[in-house]
């Protein structure tokens, strides 16, 4: 990776197209005998922190995948760790969106209803003020701390009848809403039935 940077000083940026995935095998018995490794590639545009100049040695127009570029870079600023964190947040949104599109056919999930713990992290990464974005090491720790069963508990939005209106609630809260709605129906039946 580092060798790439030294030998190929051309421009690039962090987006799903230059993150490659490979399967690695180990001697350990299952389930840890294999895993997918995510490889950050195409460091052409990389630079040492503090280097304000970005020069394309290829001579070609520098084409970015705009959706993944930090706002300060879009307006001409140089790359930074914080800009890479912004790109990571955008990649996270893309993955969540793809997951919803492809594998969530059992029930649609709105962006606002994705697990709050994950949404908070992605929102922090994509803060418009780069100084408000998390540093890479604490960010990694926060991601490692995400617990998949908790994500599943929070992901699905349920529509339930709550009194006189339909409301969308998280699955984890749905039982309480249903119980209240049922009590209201029972009360109406008792009074008018």
């Amino acid at each position, binding site marked *: *990776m*580092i*060798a*790439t*940077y030294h*030998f190929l000083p051309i421009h*690039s*940026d*962090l987006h*799903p*197209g*230059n*993150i*490659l*995935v*490979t399967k690695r095998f180990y001697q350990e018995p299952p389930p840890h005998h294999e895993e*997918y*490794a*995510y*490889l*950050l*590639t195409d*460091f*052409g*545009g*990389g*630079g*040492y*922190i503090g280097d304000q100049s970005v020069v394309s040695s290829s001579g070609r127009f520098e084409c970015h995948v705009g959706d993944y570029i930090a706002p300060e870079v879009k307006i001409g600023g140089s*790359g*930074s*760790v914080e*800009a*890479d*964190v912004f*790109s*990571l947040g955008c*990649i*996270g949104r*893309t*993955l*969540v969106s*793809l*997951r919803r599109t*492809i*594998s*969530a056919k059992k029930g649609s999930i709105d962006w606002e209803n994705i697990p709050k713990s*994950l949404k908070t992290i992605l929102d922090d990464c994509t803060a418009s003020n780069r100084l408000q974005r998390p*540093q*890479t*090491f604490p*960010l*990694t720790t926060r*991601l*490692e701390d*995400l617990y*998949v069963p908790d*994500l*599943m508990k929070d*992901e699905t939005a349920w529509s339930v009848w709550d009194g006189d209106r339909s409301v969308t609630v998280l699955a984890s809260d749905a039982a309480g809403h249903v119980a209240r709605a049922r009590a209201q129906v029972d009360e109406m039946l008792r009074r008018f039935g």
Partner: protein
Amino acid sequence: MAFYGITALQVDETGTIQLASNGFKSSEEELFLVFERASEGNLLDFVEQHFINATREESWSIVIDALTSIASGLVELDRRHLTHG
């Protein structure tokens, strides 16, 4: 990402690599950096393929594993005072 070394190969005018055994002589040699093979393609190719048959739990695991792994890569870049772009 494993870096295996540098090699020189002949490339024709269409950009196709020509093996020496083919007797191709009209092109010049170009230098290539050789890295480990990314068997699963890029990130979008990978997740699109795996989301299709993944359970809810598996699909969240894919998302979290990918983000955690990429973030770890950024930690390493940060440690070496490099930025991606």
